C-alpha cells in the first residue's frame, strides 16, 4: 500500500516469507472429475459460480495483483470473449455473490472494474491467444451479431467450422452497438473486440435480415447448421391511452436514435417509465439532450431495480430522480402533444410464482405529473415470427429449436437478459452445434488442483476500502454526449482493489490425521470458519452437504475448515503447531476430451 504506508512493514515480512516458501516448495498438480471437487469449487468461489460464463475471477485478480495484465485479460477472454466491453457494462452478478460483500465482510470486490483495468492496462503489444482446431469443412449461419451471435461464431470458428453472420442492421454488435449509449461503451473499443472475433475467419454480412432478405429455409439448405441469435427487438407497450401522442417514445427506438447521432425532442421535463438498463440509459441520454428534470417511474421498489449500484449512483449523480411504487394510468395531451401523465400508486403483494411478488394499484390514489415527453422503456420481447414461422417449440433452457439443424441462443430464446448471459448462451449453443456437426464431444471441464505453499495475503488487506471508479465531471458529460463517463483505474488503484480479493480459489484444509485438536486455529479465526464436525453428509449428486456440527468433544470427528465462511486470512495456517493446514489452488479448466 504505497498510499498511506500503513501496511508496508507487515507486507514486507509477508513477501519475504512468500519468497522463502516458493523457493522450497515443489508444485503438485492433479486433475479431478470427482463431483465432490466440483461441488467444493462451486461453493468456495461464489463469484465464479454466479458468472454465467464461469470466468476465473480470483485467477485474473491475482494476475492483476502481479501486474500481469495481459494474462488477466486472456483469462477473461477465455471465458467471456469481450473483457473490455464487459468490464464496462456487465450486469455484475458476480459482485452480488462476492464473499467480501457478505454480511459482516464489508463490500464486494470491484470485479468488473478490475476486468476493465486489465483490458485498459495491458500492453499495446498484447497478443491474443486462441487454440484453433483443424478445419472441419462445415459451415454455420449465425443470425444476429449481438453478444450471443458473436460468442457462438467465435467458438464455432475455434472449433474449425466456418461461421457466417447475417445481421439485419448496418453494423455488428446488436444492443452493444444500438442500445447501450456511447458514454458507457466507446465504439472503437467495441469494434476492436468484435474484430478480434471476426479475424478468426468469421464472415459478417450486414443489412441482411433473415425472414426479409433471405429465408431461414434457404440458410438451412446452404449451411450445415444455423444458429438464431436475433435478440429481443419487439418493444413492450404501456397499453394506456395517449401512447400515440407526439413526444411519447419507445425506449429502444429512442436509444437507437440517440446512438445514431439524432437528437429527439425531449423538452424540459421527461418522464421515463421502466426500471431496467434501457430506462436508465434513456434517462441519462435525456439529460444530455438538455432536459432539466428527468425521473424514472417504476412499479416496484428501488430495491427491485435490475441495475447495479454504480449505475444507480451515476444516474442519481446526474440528477435523475426515481418515483417508485407508481403505475401509469394514461398519458394526457393537448394538440397532439404530451402534457403529463396520470399515475396511480401501487403496493407490493406476494404471489405463489417467481418472482413471488407483483405490484397492485392502490384504490383512489391517482395523481398527475406534468411533463413534456414520455419515454416508455418497458423492455423487449423476441420477434420470433419475424425470423421464421417454423419455431414452435423454443425452450429457454435448450439450444435446440425443434427444427433440425437449427439452434438458438441469447435473448432470442431466453427473453431479455444481459450481455454476459447472452455470451454464455452463445458459447453453450456453439458446443451443441459442434456435437451435432461432428458427433464428438471435444471438451471437458475438470478441476485443476495445485498445491500452494503460501496463504498469499496479509490480514490487513481485508480492511482496504473499495476503490471508487474515476469519472468525468458533469459539465464534461454535458459538453460531449458521447464522452465516456468512467475513465478506469490507474495501475495503483488496480493494485489496491486487487488486494481486496480474498482469493477464494485457495482451499484451506486440515489434515485430520495430524491434528491434535488443540483448537489454536479456532481461537484465532476471525469468522465462524473452523468447525467441530460430527459428520459431513454426501448429497445425491455426489457433492458434500452441510456440516453437522457438534459442541461436544467426544463426538468431534474432525476439525474442519468451512470454505464457504473462510476469508482466506491465513491466521489458522500461521498458528497451527502441527503444520497440518494445507492450501490448495483450485481452478475449473477446459481440457480436450482426449487429453
Amino acid at each position, binding site marked *: 500500500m504505497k498510499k498511506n504506508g500503513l501496511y508496508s512493514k507487515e507486507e514486507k515480512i509477508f513477501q519475504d516469507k512468500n519468497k522463502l516458501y516458493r523457493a522450497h516448495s515443489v508444485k503438485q498438480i492433479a486433475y479431478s472429475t470427482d463431483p465432490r471437487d466440483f461441488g467444493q469449487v462451486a461453493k468456495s468461489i461464489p463469484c465464479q459460480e454466479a458468472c454465467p460464463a464461469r470466468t476465473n475471477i480470483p485467477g485474473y485478480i491475482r494476475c492483476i495483483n502481479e501486474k500481469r495484465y495481459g494474462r488477466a485479460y486472456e483469462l477473461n477472454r477465455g471465458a467471456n470473449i469481450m473483457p473490455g466491453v464487459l468490464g464496462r457494462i456487465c450486469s455484475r452478478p458476480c459482485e452480488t455473490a462476492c464473499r467480501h460483500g457478505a454480511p459482516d465482510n464489508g463490500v464486494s470486490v470491484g470485479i468488473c472494474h478490475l476486468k476493465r483495468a486489465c483490458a485498459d492496462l495491458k500492453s499495446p503489444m498484447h497478443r491474443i491467444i486462441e487454440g484453433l482446431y483443424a478445419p472441419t469443412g462445415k459451415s454455420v449461419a449465425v443470425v444476429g451479431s449481438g453478444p450471443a451471435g458473436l460468442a457462438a461464431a467465435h467458438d464455432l470458428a475455434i472449433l474449425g467450422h466456418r461461421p457466417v453472420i447475417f445481421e439485419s442492421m448496418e453494423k455488428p454488435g446488436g444492443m452493444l452497438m444500438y442500445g447501450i449509449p456511447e458514454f458507457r461503451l466507446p465504439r472503437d473499443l467495441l469494434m476492436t473486440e468484435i474484430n478480434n472475433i471476426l479475424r478468426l475467419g468469421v464472415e459478417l454480412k450486414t443489412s441482411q435480415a433473415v425472414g426479409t432478405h433471405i429465408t431461414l429455409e434457404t440458410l438451412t439448405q446452404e449451411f450445415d447448421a444455423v444458429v438464431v441469435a436475433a435478440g429481443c427487438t419487439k418493444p413492450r407497450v404501456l397499453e394506456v391511452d395517449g401512447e400515440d401522442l407526439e413526444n411519447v417514445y419507445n425506449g429502444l427506438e429512442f436509444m437507437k436514435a440517440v446512438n445514431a447521432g439524432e437528437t429527439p425532442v425531449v423538452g424540459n421535463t421527461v418522464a421515463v417509465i421502466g426500471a431496467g438498463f434501457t430506462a436508465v440509459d434513456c434517462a441519462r441520454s435525456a439529460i444530455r439532450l438538455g432536459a432539466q428534470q428527468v425521473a424514472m417511474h417504476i412499479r416496484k421498489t428501488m430495491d427491485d431495480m435490475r441495475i447495479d449500484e454504480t449505475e444507480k*449512483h451515476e444516474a442519481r449523480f446526474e440528477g435523475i430522480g426515481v418515483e*417508485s*411504487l407508481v403505475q401509469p394510468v394514461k398519458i394526457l395531451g393537448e394538440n397532439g402533444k404530451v402534457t403529463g401523465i396520470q399515475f396511480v*400508486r401501487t*403496493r*407490493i403483494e406476494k404471489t405463489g410464482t417467481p418472482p413471488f*411478488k407483483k405490484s397492485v394499484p*392502490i384504490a383512489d*390514489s391517482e*395523481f398527475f405529473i406534468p411533463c413534456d415527453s414520455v419515454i416508455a422503456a418497458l423492455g423487449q420481447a423476441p420477434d420470433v415470427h419475424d425470423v421464421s414461422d417454423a419455431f414452435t417449440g423454443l425452450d429457454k433452457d435448450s439450444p435446440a429449436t425443434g427444427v433440425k439443424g437449427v439452434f438458438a441462443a441469447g435473448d432470442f430464446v431466453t427473453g431479455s437478459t444481459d450481455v454476459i448471459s447472452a455470451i454464455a448462451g452463445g458459447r453453450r449453443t456453439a458446443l451443441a452445434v459442434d456435437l451435432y456437426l461432428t458427433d464428438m464431444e471435444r471438451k471437458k471441464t475438470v478441476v485443476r488442483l495445485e498445491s500452494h505453499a503460501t496463504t498469499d495475503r496479509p490480514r490487513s488487506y481485508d480492511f482496504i476500502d473499495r476503490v471508487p471508479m474515476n469519472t468525468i465531471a458533469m459539465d464534461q458529460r454535458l459538453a460531449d454526449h458521447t464522452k465516456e463517463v468512467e475513465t478506469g483505474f490507474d495501475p495503483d488503484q488496480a493494485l489496491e482493489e486487487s488486494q481486496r480479493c480474498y482469493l477464494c480459489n485457495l482451499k484451506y484444509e486440515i489434515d485430520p490425521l495430524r491434528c491434535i485438536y488443540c483448537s489454536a486455529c479456532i481461537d484465532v479465526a476471525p469468522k465462524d470458519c473452523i468447525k467441530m464436525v460430527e459428520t459431513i453428509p454426501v448429497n445425491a449428486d455426489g457433492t458434500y452437504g452441510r456440516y453437522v456440527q457438534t459442541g461436544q468433544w467426544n463426538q468431534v470427528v474432525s476439525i474442519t475448515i468451512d470454505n464457504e465462511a473462510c476469508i482466506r486470512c491465513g491466521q489458522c495456517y500461521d498458528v497451527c503447531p502441527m503444520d497440518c493446514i494445507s492450501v490448495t489452488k483450485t481452478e475449473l479448466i477446459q481440457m480436450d476430451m482426449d487429453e
Partner: protein
Amino acid sequence: MPTHDHYVIIGNGPAGNAAAFTLRENDPDAAITIISHENICFYSKPKLVKYLAGKVDEDALAVRTMDEYRRRHIRLRLGQTVAHIDPDSQSLHLSHMEKVHYTDLIIASGARARLLPSMKPYADCLTFVTEFNDTRGLRKKIADGSRFFIFGGDLVAFKFLKMLTDMGKQVTLLLYPRAFWPHRLTKDMQDAIVKNLAPTGADILADDDLDTIVQDQGKYCVTTKQGVRTQADLVFSFNGLIPEVDFARGCGLEIDHGILVDETMRTSLEHIFACGSCAQIYNPDINTYTTSIGWPNAQVQGKVAGLNLLGEHHKVRPAGRKYFDLEGVKIKTSWWEDLEKGKDT
C-alpha cells in the same frame, strides 16, 4: 406463567422506546431487548439544537434513566450494531459476530443524513447532525466560529439557521429544493421562504447549487455554480434523511426508501414490524408514500407496532397537525410537530 418469548427492538429512539414500554405494559413476562448502536441512553434529538447552542447541558438531553429500564426488566444493549437479519432462523447478527435470537422483531432504526450524490467528493468537508455522536466537539466549534454555511432545506436546516443567527453568527443558506422527500419546493415556495427568512439576517441563496468546497487550515471556501464564493468555519448539510435500513437489505424484507409497512406496522415478513423514521408507509391523506417524520409520530407508530405484535389490530393515524409550516410555507403532510418551539429552557 413464564414464557420464552424474546421481543427484540432495533433502535433506542422514540419509536423503539414506545414499542418496548408498550410491550412491557401488556406482556409482563416476555424478555425484551433494545439494541442500539449509539452508546447513550434514550435522549431527545430535538434538544440537540439547544445543546449545540450551549443553552442546555448533556444531562438535559436524557428522556429516560437507566433505572427505568432496570425496573421494567427491559434489557438495553448499547453500542452494539445489527449487521444482518436472518428471518429463517429468527436471529440477528451483530457486527461483533454474536447472534441474537428473537421470537418477534421490531425495527425502529431511524434515519441518517442524506449525502447528495453530487456532494460525495466533498463528504469530508460537510458536517451532519442526526445523532448525539455527531455533536462531539461541535459545541466548541460553533461557539468559537463566526461564519457558517448551511446547504439544504429540510426542517433541521431552518432550525439550525435560526439557532446560529440567534447566537449572532453570520450564516449563508443555500436552499436545496429537494431536501425534503417526498415534497419538492416549487419556485413560489422557495421565494416565500427566502422572504420569510429575511429578518434573520442570513444570506439566502436560491436557484443555485454547490460547485466546490476547498478546505484550508480548518476553514472552508465554498463556491456555488453561480460563482458566489463564501468563507465558512463549518459547512452543514441538511438535505433530508434516508432511512437507516442497509442492515435489513437482502433478508427478504420489501424495502423502497424505507422498510415498507402497512398501517398496522407489519412488514412483508412474519414476526417483523417496523416503525418510526425507518419505515415507509402509504399515507392516504396526502396520496403518497412517506417515511415517518418527527418525534410524536415515531412514538405513535412504536406503540401501534408493540400492540399489534401482541396480536391486536390497531392502525396508525397520522399524528399532529395536517399541515406543517416550513418558514411560512404550508406543506401538506401530517407527521411533524415542532417540539422545541416557544419553549426556552
